[in-house]
Structures are given as structure tokens and as C-alpha cells.
């Protein structure tokens, strides 16, 4: 479970995230939506401990993520935007390294399971830098899953993938429904419709909406909230 309360973040004079509060329940897949520059990545970076909030509170699986950042991070699997990886390493070697860093007790077993879950078992011996983007994305997901965390945070996980890869990736994420709390940042509306139970729209750093994902016309809702103008209206 992720609990966020009155979260704010300043960069100098600019308020990137302004008083955002929300909850992601266990087993729920929540879409985190917003135009580019709305504050999505900044919010996720605060949830994962990469950035400190200027003010506000975060609880990850019941742990205060501001006061006990390391303990909170143990409960998280995070796939940052662009999926940064050590490109010179082999897939298996990288996952073993990450498992050791995350203090996973049985590394060999955890690596096999994560490779299987993310669908990269056939590429375990390949060098990451030589993989296609879709496969690298899966390695990123395998890394996020390595410690079998109760919470997954995925930042634009399908950007740059071809339609087949997008579909495969969505199926993978859908499989976590009912098992993990998943927060999925994206600006692709069809992705939210396809995989999420609920969606949170963030606009200019503020939470603009918290709705069920099943909407008659999600695009219209999004445009109206983020521009203040109805899609079919002048």
C-alpha cells in the first residue's frame, strides 16, 4: 500500500509538486496520468526515495518513507523512466548484482523467478547493451521484481516500444492485479484503460482527478481536466 499525504516538492522557486495526496491499495493497479512536465516523475522519485520531499508524508507498506527511507525502499520495485541499466553486464549477472544489493536471501532462485516473470529467461546470458529496447525494458521489470516487493512503481514503462511489445508489456503488468500495489505513470490513455483499475490525473503539480479507470471517453475527461476545455467544444 502506498499512502501519500500533502506531498510537495520545490526546485528553487518552482513548485513542481504541490500538495498531492492519494492512496494505492494492495492489489490495485493505479494509472498516474498527466501531460509532460506535470510532476509525475518528480512524485515517483519522492516515493522511491530518490528525491526528498520539501514537505508532506509518504508511507510505503506502512513504513514512513521520509524518516526510514532505506526500510521503505526494501518494499519497492521501481522501474525508472528510460530504464537505466549497466549495459556492459549480462542480464543474469546484473540481476544477481541487484538481488545482492537488495539483500535477497536466495539469489539464484530470485533471479530465475524474475527472469521467468518478465519473460527474459531466454536472454539471461546476453549482454544488456546488445538487447533490443523491448528486452531491456523487460530486464528493468525483472530487476523491479527481483525482491518480490509488495509495491511496484513503473515510470512510463512502455515509452519507445513497438505495438507488439506494448501489448506484451501490458499483459505482464495486468498479471500483477490483485497481487501487488502498482503505480503506473504514463501519458498514454489507452494504456490506463487497458490495465488500470483507477487513475489519478496530475496537472501542473496538483492532483486534478482521482477516478475509476473505466470512463466512457477518457480522452475527453483528460483534455477537459488538463486544459479546462472540452474536446468537442470550442
Amino acid at each position, binding site marked *: 500500500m502506498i499512502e501519500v499525504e500533502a506531498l510537495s516538492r520545490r526546485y528553487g522557486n518552482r513548485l513542481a509538486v504541490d500538495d498531492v495526496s492519494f492512496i494505492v491499495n494492495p492489489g490495485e493497479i493505479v494509472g498516474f496520468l498527466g501531460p509532460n512536465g506535470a510532476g509525475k516523475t518528480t512524485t515517483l*522519485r519522492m516515493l*522511491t*526515495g*530518490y*528525491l*526528498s520531499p520539501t514537505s508532506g508524508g509518504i508511507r510505503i507498506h506502512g513504513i514512513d518513507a521520509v524518516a526510514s527511507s*532505506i*526500510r521503505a*525502499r*526494501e518494499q*519497492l520495485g*521501481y522501474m*525508472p523512466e*528510460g530504464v*537505466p*541499466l*549497466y*549495459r*556492459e*553486464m549480462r542480464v543474469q*549477472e546484473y540481476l544477481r*548484482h*541487484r538481488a*545482492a*544489493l*537488495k*539483500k535477497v536471501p536466495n539469489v539464484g532462485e530470485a533471479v530465475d523467478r524474475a527472469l521467468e516473470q518478465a519473460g527474459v529467461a531466454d536472454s539471461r546470458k546476453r549482454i544488456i547493451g546488445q538487447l533490443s529496447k523491448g528486452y531491456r525494458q523487460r530486464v528493468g521489470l525483472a*530487476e523491479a521484481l527481483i525482491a518480490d516487493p509488495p509495491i511496484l512503481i513503473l515510470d512510463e514503462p512502455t515509452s519507445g516500444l513497438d505495438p507488439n511489445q506494448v501489448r506484451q508489456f501490458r499483459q505482464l503488468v495486468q498479471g500483477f492485479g490483485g497481487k501487488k500495489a502498482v503505480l503506473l505513470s504514463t501519458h498514454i490513455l489507452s494504456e490506463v484503460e487497458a490495465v488500470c483499475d483507477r487513475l489519478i490525473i496530475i496537472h501542473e503539480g496538483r492532483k486534478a482527478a482521482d477516478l475509476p479507470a473505466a470512463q466512457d471517453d477518457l480522452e475527453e475527461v483528460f483534455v477537459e481536466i488538463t486544459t479546462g476545455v472540452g474536446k468537442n467544444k470550442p
Partner: protein
Amino acid sequence: MKSAWVVMKRELASFFVSPLAYVVLTSWLVWNGVVFWVLTEFYARNAVSSGAASPLSAFFGGSVLFFIPLLVFVPILAMRLIAGEKQSGTIETLMTAPVSETSVILGKYGASLVMWCVLWLPTVVYAWIMSQHGSVDWGATASSYFGVFCLGAYFMAVGLLMSTLASTQIIAAVLSFVALGVLFTVGIGEFVFDGAAREVCAYVSMWGHMQSFSKGVVDTRYLVFDLSVAVLAVGLSIGALKARRHG
């Protein structure tokens, strides 16, 4: 501490599969091979006329030829430590794993010390060559290597700090080069100034440091200086990495 070990292992594994490692190691050995050859030739042709008593003690800091490559290679070896993670974006996965900044910095620093030792290890063969053709003062040789290690502990800590502060590897390399170059030059002030200024310059002098160790004199003043700079720079690196979360 286990996390520091995990970070260190990965750093070394990545370094030794990179072309950079082999370019640096090869260039380093070519350079030192030439230096060692020129110094032995010099001693073979001239009766001992310089301050250094043997080609080996001249090799270990007896000439500027010892310092020039260090001022270049240390920044190159250290630049990737943290700045490389920033440039590739992997800093985000690293710092969102359940590891402390202290573990990350200590792991990186440990890796840099291993790199430093790997750089120097092949030069042991020079001492062996000397021992085949004359006598070698093994005590002085051991203290030379000890001095080299202490100097490395200080140089690498400075390189690590610059790599933590800089946003890209090339900026990190330039900053380390300038920092070490300035420290080296200030040390030369030992031969320029008088009085208190001379004392201060002598204290930071890399030249004086290595000349003392290469003669077999383990001067604790230099050890205290090396250790102080290393601890300070590593501590500042931890602080800088922590400050990043608030930046």
C-alpha cells in the same frame, strides 16, 4: 558494509570489461617502462650525482616523470565512479535500492583503491630486474610501495569527490586534474618560499612525500596528511551524495 562490498564488486567487474581499463593500463606501463629505462640508463652512465641513491628510488617520485602520468591517469580512473552513474542514469536505480550513501561511496572508493593497486602491481617487476643486476634495498622498496599506496588513497579520494560533484565524467576528470595539479604545484613551493610558507608547502609536497618514502623513511607527517585528505574527501563525497536528494 555488505552493500559496499556489492557496489565495489560491480564497479570493478564493469571497469575490467571496459576498453578504458586496458587503454589506461597499457599506456601506464608503456610510460613507466620508458621512464624506468631512461633512469637506469642515466645511473649506468653517470656516477650517482643526484639526490636519489638508486634507479628505483629515482623511479618512485625522484623525478617529475613519476607525477605527470599520475596527474592524468588518476582523474581518468576516478571520473566514472559517480559521474558515470549520473551520466548513464543508473544513479537512479542505485540510489533507490535499499543502500545508504555511505555504502555506495565506500564501495566506489574501495574499487578505486583496487584499481590503483592493479596499476602499480606490474612495476614490481622493475625491482626484480634490478635485483638480477645489482643489489636492491628491499626495505626502501617496500616503503616506496607503501608511500605509493598512501598517495593513491589521497589521490583517489580527491578524484572520487570530484566525480561526486560533477555532472559528467569529463568535468569530473578536469576538476580532479586541476585539484591534484594545484596540490602538486603548491608542494613545489617548498623550493620557492621561506619561513612558514615553506613549512606549509613542504607539508603538502607530493615530491617530499615520495622522496622520503623512496629512501625508506616512513614519515608519519605525510601519512597523517594523506589520511586526513582521504577521510575528508570521502566524507565530503558522502555528504554531496546525500545532498543530491534535496537538490
